[in-house]
């Protein structure tokens, strides 16, 4: 069913009785060409692009819970392409371009809103780092501008310019960055994949990966064994667990990242704002809630919930940098499980097992990568060659030291990225 304003009008006039399911609930078949483990944003996007761009439709996406229930359903919805290291630059650039046409492509309003991002800097060192980053972005072909303090003040007068422990000196701005309605992204891809014949199978936990003679042959699931020519991991924070089923150890630690939303208030924050000091990223949703986050809790966790020290740190950063939101009330906090790598950048690659593919290590940058990741992963699965925008996301780089993408420069300590 095609969605449109006319359709909404027509259904409204006839009692909204004509809306069909967004996707089917098929029984798993005995065998598929491709099984994708994980029905989150990346898994669903992968299925969609495999079907839409590569004509592979005999696919099952196996999800142990509900579609979009992982990090795509629990993030701060920011989309941007402002990385500076080769590998990341071209990938996020590609992903942002996909975001820009996503709604028309999916016939689903994911509310992609290019409201711009301001990465504030507070001293000369941070400014020079912002300049290096901005130049990288331009060299990649994306947009970036360096704003001085007055220009930032004009755009975001509610920030603390007058009595700040770390005075705001300026910002790196990317106008094409913004936010999207996170759940809708998952649903849009799910619907698009389902329409093209992909089987989306919920409540179907994978309990084993079958490997014969160094080649993957299928998976064991809570709903029985399913054979497959190719098996593709897209399990985010659970990647290590799933890979272990195939005997693989990944360069990944799972950590909890909390995120926060306040009660709805009238529009105040128009852009996405981030602070280099103390680390904060904040935007305001279309519903009026302020959505924000900060660092990881820093300890390994699968609990998808956090503790007070990082909650308080985040609120302290808000108070320091945006004192105008001090009276906004925190409504809900939640945690996601982040697959942290030693260089803070992801992996889209073959695994050592034939027919088993890896897509993991998104740290806490996975949401903005969703279309790009699905697109590049689908390319890899379909053609067995890396997508041109994702050639550097190699598993081997950690061992060889070639092409590490350590944007933070914090080295091989997984939780510091």
């Amino acid at each position: 069913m095609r969605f449109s304003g006319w359709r909404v009008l027509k259904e409204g006039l006839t009692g909204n009785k004509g809306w069909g399911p967004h996707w089917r609930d098929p029984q798993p078949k005995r065998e598929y060409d491709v099984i994708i483990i994980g029905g989150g944003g990346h898994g669903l996007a992968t299925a969609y692009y495999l079907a839409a761009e590569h004509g592979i439709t005999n696919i099952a996406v196996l999800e142990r819970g509900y579609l979009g229930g992982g990090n795509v359903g629990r993030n701060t919805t920011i989309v941007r392409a402002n990385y500076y290291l080769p590998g990341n630059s071209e990938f996020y650039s590609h992903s942002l371009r996909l975001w820009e046409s996503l709604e028309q492509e999916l016939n689903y309003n994911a509310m992609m809103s290019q409201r711009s991002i301001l990465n504030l800097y507070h001293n000369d060192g941070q400014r020079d780092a912002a300049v290096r980053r901005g130049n990288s972005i331009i060299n990649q072909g994306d947009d970036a501008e360096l704003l001085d303090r007055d220009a930032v003040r004009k755009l975001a007068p509610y920030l603390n310019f007058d009595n700040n422990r770390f005075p705001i000196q300026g910002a790196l701005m990317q106008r094409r960055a913004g936010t999207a309605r996170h759940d809708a992204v998952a649903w849009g891809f799910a619907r698009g994949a389902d329409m093209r014949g992909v089987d989306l199978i919920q409540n179907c936990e994978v309990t084993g990966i079958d490997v014969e003679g160094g080649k993957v042959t299928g998976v064991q699931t809570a709903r029985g064994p399913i054979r497959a020519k190719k098996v593709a991991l897209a399990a985010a924070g659970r990647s290590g667990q799933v890979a272990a089923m195939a005997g693989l150890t990944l360069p990944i630690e799972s950590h909890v990242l909390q995120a926060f939303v306040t009660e709805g208030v009238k529009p105040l924050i128009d852009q996405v704002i981030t602070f280099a000091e103390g680390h904060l990223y904040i935007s305001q949703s279309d519903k009026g809630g302020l959505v924000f986050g900060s660092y990881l809790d820093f300890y390994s966790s699968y609990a998808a919930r956090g503790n007070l020290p990082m909650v308080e740190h985040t609120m302290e950063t808000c108070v320091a940098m945006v004192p105008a939101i001090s009276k906004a009330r925190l409504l809900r906090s939640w945690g996601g499980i982040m697959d942290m790598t030693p260089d803070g950048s992801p992996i889209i690659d073959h695994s050592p097992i034939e027919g088993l593919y890896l897509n993991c290590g998104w740290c806490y940058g996975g949401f903005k990568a969703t279309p790009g990741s699905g697109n590049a992963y689908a390319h890899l699965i379909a053609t067995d060659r890396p997508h041109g925008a994702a050639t550097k996301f190699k598993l081997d780089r950690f061992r060889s030291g070639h092409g590490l993408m350590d944007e933070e420069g914090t080295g091989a300590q997984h939780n510091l990225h």
Partner: protein
Amino acid sequence: MRIAGKGLTQGAKSVNFTFNGQHLMGLEGDTLASALLANDHHLVARSFKYHRPRGILTAGSEEPNALVTLGTGAAQDPNIRATTQELYEGLEARSQNCWPSVEHDILSVNNLAAPFFGAGFYYKTFMWPAAFWEKLYEPMIRRAAGLGALSGEADTDAYEKAFAFCDLLVVGSGPAGLMAALTAGRAGADVMMLEEDSRMGGRLLVEREEINGKPAALWLAEALAELQAMGNVRLMSRTAVTGAYDQGTYGALERVSHHLPRNHSLKGSHRPRECFWRIAAKHCVLAAGAIERPVAFRNNDRPGVMMAGAVRAYLNRWGVAPGERITLFANNDDAHRTARDLAAAGVHLAAVIDSRHDAPDSDLFPVLKGAQVCNTSGGKRLESITVRSVRGEEKIQTDCLAMSGGWNPSVHLTCHLNGRPTWRRDLLGFVPQPDAVPGLRAAGACNGTFSTQGALCEGAAAAAEVLEALGLQRHGAPLPQADDAPYRIAPLWTVPGKGRAWLDFQNDVTVKDVTQAAAENFRSVEHMKRYTTQGMATDQGKNSNVAALAVLADVTGRSIPETGSTTFRPPFVPVAIGAMGAGAADQGFKPQRFVTSQDVAEERGASQLEVGLWYRAAYFPKQGETSWRQSCDREVMYVRKAVGVCDVSTLGKIDIQGADAAKLLDFVYCNTFSTLKQGRVRYGLMLREDGFVMDDGTTARLGQNHYVMTTTTAAAGQVMAHLEFILQVLRPEWDVRATSVTEHWAQFAVAGPKSRELLNALLDQPIDSEGWPFMACGEVSVLGVKGRLFRISFSGEEAYELALPACYGDSLFRSLLSRAEGLGGGAYGMEALNVLRIEKGFITHAEINGTVTAQDLGMAGMLSKKKTFIGQAMAARPGLVDPDRVQMVGLKPIGAVKELSAGAHLFNPEDPVERIYDQGYVTSAGFSPLMGHTIALGFLKQGANRIGDEIRLVDHMRGLDTLCEVVEPVFFDPEGERTRG
């Protein structure tokens, strides 16, 4: 309407307040809601989506409708629940999210368009033309969305945070909480009892009942008096426990002065507006009670439709009848108490409708059994209800409908650590899973035990278990006797029929929306929630989630436990960012660290830089200088021509002593320190275990087993932790200790051709170049004060660093400056320091950016092959020794533009300026007054082999595009003759 002789507010002082500009009067002890109802004021707010008129639904913090804004300017406080806001003299409240007024709200046209605004409609439209989303649709939606407004000004109220510790935390002060606190308190346990309400007592404040044969209020007063008299019990009202965290940590929000006129909480006044508590409790008894849930029927959202328990609360606690002709609609016995209390108070009860055929009878009022309310009418106030029974449909005139669909135990805290509640069919509600939060026991209504007697009993029993765990003796006081009526309920979630029946009142989610979501295959409860926004309003579904779940279960043909529940997450009640972020406003965000020369720097008008937590002088302006560059150039020339003095105390200083001190240094640095002679200093480079450079600095050998290491300012903490890691984890058998002495020493660089002359004027024993060659160190004394002198240089000049105990820092700096000025020099700051070090190619964390190797820095030769050290193995990875990597180079401008800038990228002149042709980047740039132009350091692919090449420097951010020459990264005195003096 206030009922004479009813309520705890009898005889209270009257209080003036305004609502939407209208002057009204309430009583001390009123909430804004009770005062509005006493004034017969029902229309308080508008709903979020359809802007439907809304009144007061509840009497607690779960209120979804009656949200108002208080105050103006910086004090503007949106989304205040009228049901918890205590009245104070002069309180000014107003409706929000309506225009021009709550009476006449333009956006109520949305209500007419409701057929088109069903669940998830926005995902299906607003896509054409594509550009219109950002230009038209989204701005429209954003303007309409949101509830109240923030002022946009910085908050001027004060907030606090505090820690507390106890044996037993009791959450809630109803019968279960009171008995828990009494039992534990009598046994001597350290008890905290927290109550969200302004008064202790929970439901005992709002029910007419007896305990031990006397009115509950009397028993409550006695219990509280007993608790207050105990030195080991802390009672905190207006304090809501907001979250349960690991190892018995709880968050709690105390509303310290919300009940007082606002000037009580301004910054500088003696009390904060709110205090956020972090409580470490060995045990917790959750006695949080239960929340009554509405029934979904057509137009159940009109002002005047209220919860039955709330109607009872307004009557019994505040002496307010919310209507003149009240009706009641319920599916459970408990709700009949409301009818009994109303009847006893002489309020006219128009009808009692019970969906159950076996509902209890009453002498006081007729009960319509097996009947349901299927519609209401009225505009801004309920006028009538339509009742459906075997007799057909009839309309009953009423201005207030008290409804009850049963009670939901407040299990929230028990789910904060991922515990899932258990469905109880007899209660039609979720109860906590035991041990869902280690150390937490639920008691009373929150545990599904609804009778007062049951609550008293469970509270006492839970405390008894805690006492046993604490090893304390329980006192054998008898359990008080109270009502123990069973809780009888029959399922009734929705009343079938046409039209819209509300589930989530604030977000305007109706039964139809949930049904439609299910039809679109949003059958998972999480999908339904996210698709319809059910339970995502400010009450987080406290009123509506269970009923919505029941609807979803019904339409998908599953049981409620099969359907599951959404996740309860902290905070239990919303918490102001200002409270959890207390202390961080203005300069409070991070500690401030000042060097001992700070006063002098301020006296001289030095510009300050934040360097980590430190403040350092950037430059010391002189009269007549109009830009920082002029000052900086002058200060650079002090050092090159005479002598400059700079505070370098912020560099990390680590004292290392012990028989194995040399071993430690050999292990932590990639070059060797065991061979360093006593009285000498060596430059060292340390790697992370992954082979990249961590930090650099100089280490001096003061004695056979005594070194002092310096680190960069930025990495001081990291290096200290690293040393401790080696000493405690990797090499605990070594006899060596490391101690941070950064703050113990004030250390000043004295640099320039006249540095020795200056020092000799100050030192008790003069020095000469033979006794103190380059890289010498040792003890000196200044006016009898023992200190340390290091002949090291970060400027390339003959230079020393003189360290005295920090208490002498100020006077030492003053003495050094006055003598330097006598020699034609003076103070220099960070800007000049930076230029001086770039001229010499010395690195800082602009270069040691976490991604560089020793080879990149041209220091591959420092990686010792004669010993093992941290990072050695991984530094040998092929990717780290690849000759194709970048290497540090110097850059000199050629061509017309003599500017270079940090952050610029480098390209071969013939290549396009695109990422794939990128050759490197500039890390540091500064104007060299010696050379008369800017110079820079940077990393360039195979840089060491490209000395003399032309390279194109492009800085889009600053609009700079110029050619430069690749040079060795030492611009000045490459042989180091000046350093050696």
